[in-house]
């Protein structure tokens, strides 16, 4: 009998789920932000353009979208787009740091069966969390979860990016999730966006990978992972989930300006398939782009093919390899058999992410008051 994963390898008419970063604007500046968010991009899709994308997703029967950012809720039309999507049979799961999850908004969310909320928290204590996500972010997330629980929202998600500092807190995260009637979701730290700058000091140590794997096996399907730890399957039995790199096959990313990438962790020209503003819209990008067609061909294992665990780990995560400067047909940088580590010491140049929307921390004074753009450039406002 053909396994489902083999059917998926050749791609689907429409993605199973799709990540849509609505804005690069964010109130936080997390050190590991995979989309290097902070400032809004002026080319961001308008409300009308975003609704046109939703219309396409409805026609393509995309069951739900994972909305993120940036912080999606800071877009003034966020709630309008949320209602528009769910009214058009496109379910929404959105990731937030909780800044706009007021009691009122929580009540609104709790009444919509087609909405799921994911609160990001990267430490079970303020100390561990705020070191990565910024001062006050722990309190914001906890307040948001309390508001959701009080509003009667059931089974929303507590989403944690696993780092070497919070892997010792897995049980505490589970306790927090249980306290608010939420489900815990653990995902992998990727060296994408600003994550590339902190990956070396934040990614789990080799012995912690084992600890994480054992913890995931013990908790089974009760803890979600977004299939992000399939590289750990080389420890033994595969983890629940597809255990397949879904990039361009079952998932993809639409970024705030409408660019379509193979996956949320691969914002780089190398993985850019097209733009939803193009003539054929999102549908043509998904179905016709040369990049996605290539990703749907059987992948070569390269150096990994001779490894006995290749069938379960499939060489790991494409984005993790790319942004650590490793070849795509070799082992994952966090290969649990240790084949990635030796390569990291001799790695080549590390590709930079294509866009950086980080808040500018350093403002350079140029000795005269700032002038407006129109004074600086005769073309300002003309495009």
């Amino acid at each position, binding site marked *: *009998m*053909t396994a*489902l994963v083999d*059917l998926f390898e*050749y791609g*689907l*008419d*429409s993605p*199973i789920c799709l990540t849509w970063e609505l804005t690069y604007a964010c109130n936080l500046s997390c050190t590991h932000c995979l989309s290097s968010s902070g400032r809004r991009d002026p080319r961001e899709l308008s409300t009308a353009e975003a609704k046109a994308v939703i219309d396409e997703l409805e026609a393509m*029967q995309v*069951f*739900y979208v994972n909305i993120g950012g940036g912080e999606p809720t800071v877009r003034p039309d966020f709630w309008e787009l949320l209602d528009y999507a769910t009214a058009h*049979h496109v*379910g929404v799961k959105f990731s937030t740091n909780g800044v706009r999850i007021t009691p009122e908004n929580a009540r609104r969310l709790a009444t919509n*069966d*087609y909405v*799921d909320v994911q609160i990001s928290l990267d430490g079970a204590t303020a100390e561990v969390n705020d070191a990565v996500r910024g001062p006050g972010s722990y309190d914001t997330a906890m307040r948001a979860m309390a508001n959701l629980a009080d509003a009667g929202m059931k089974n929303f998600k507590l989403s944690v990016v696993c780092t070497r500092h919070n892997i010792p807190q897995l049980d505490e995260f589970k306790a927090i999730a249980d306290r608010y009637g939420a489900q815990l979701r653990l995902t992998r730290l990727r060296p994408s966006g600003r994550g590339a700058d902190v990956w070396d000091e934040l990614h789990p140590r080799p012995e912690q990978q084992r600890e994480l794997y054992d913890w995931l096996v013990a908790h089974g399907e009760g803890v979600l992972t977004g299939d992000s730890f399939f590289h750990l399957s080389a420890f033994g039995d595969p983890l629940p989930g597809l255990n397949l790199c879904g990039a361009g096959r079952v998932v993809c990313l639409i970024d705030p300006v409408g660019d379509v990438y193979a996956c949320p962790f691969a914002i780089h020209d190398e993985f850019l398939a097209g733009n939803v503003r193009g003539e054929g819209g999102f549908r043509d990008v998904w179905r016709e782009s040369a990049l996605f067609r290539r990703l749907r061909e059987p992948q070569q294992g390269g150096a990994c093919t001779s490894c006995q665990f290749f069938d379960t780990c499939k060489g790991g995560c494409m984005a993790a390899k790319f942004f650590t400067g490793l070849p795509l047909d070799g082992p994952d940088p966090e290969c649990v058999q240790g084949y990635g580590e030796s390569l990291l010491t001799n790695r080549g140049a590390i590709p930079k992410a294509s866009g950086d929307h980080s808040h500018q921390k350093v403002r350079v004074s140029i000795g005269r008051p700032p002038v407006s753009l129109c004074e600086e450039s005769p073309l300002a406002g003309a495009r």
Partner: protein
Amino acid sequence: MVFDLDRAWDLHPQVSVRPEPFGALLYHFGTRKLSFLKDRGLLSVVQALASAPTARAACAAAGASPDDIPRYARALTVLARGDMLTERRPAE
């Protein structure tokens, strides 16, 4: 939920079905679970459930041969257990 081939069934109202080259994907907006149908024949059966007096009749309406019935019954049982199907009172 116990599946009975000789009763009337329907897709759960919160389930969405999307045909794919290999068969179909099913998504349940309530349980947020994804499921799949591994061939187009099974998809025809599932699509015929709502208008057939029994699941067995739906198989026949979808052109299933008697040899296919046990296989389809197994698949429908799994779907019913996963809350993808609900039992329905047949129309009078």
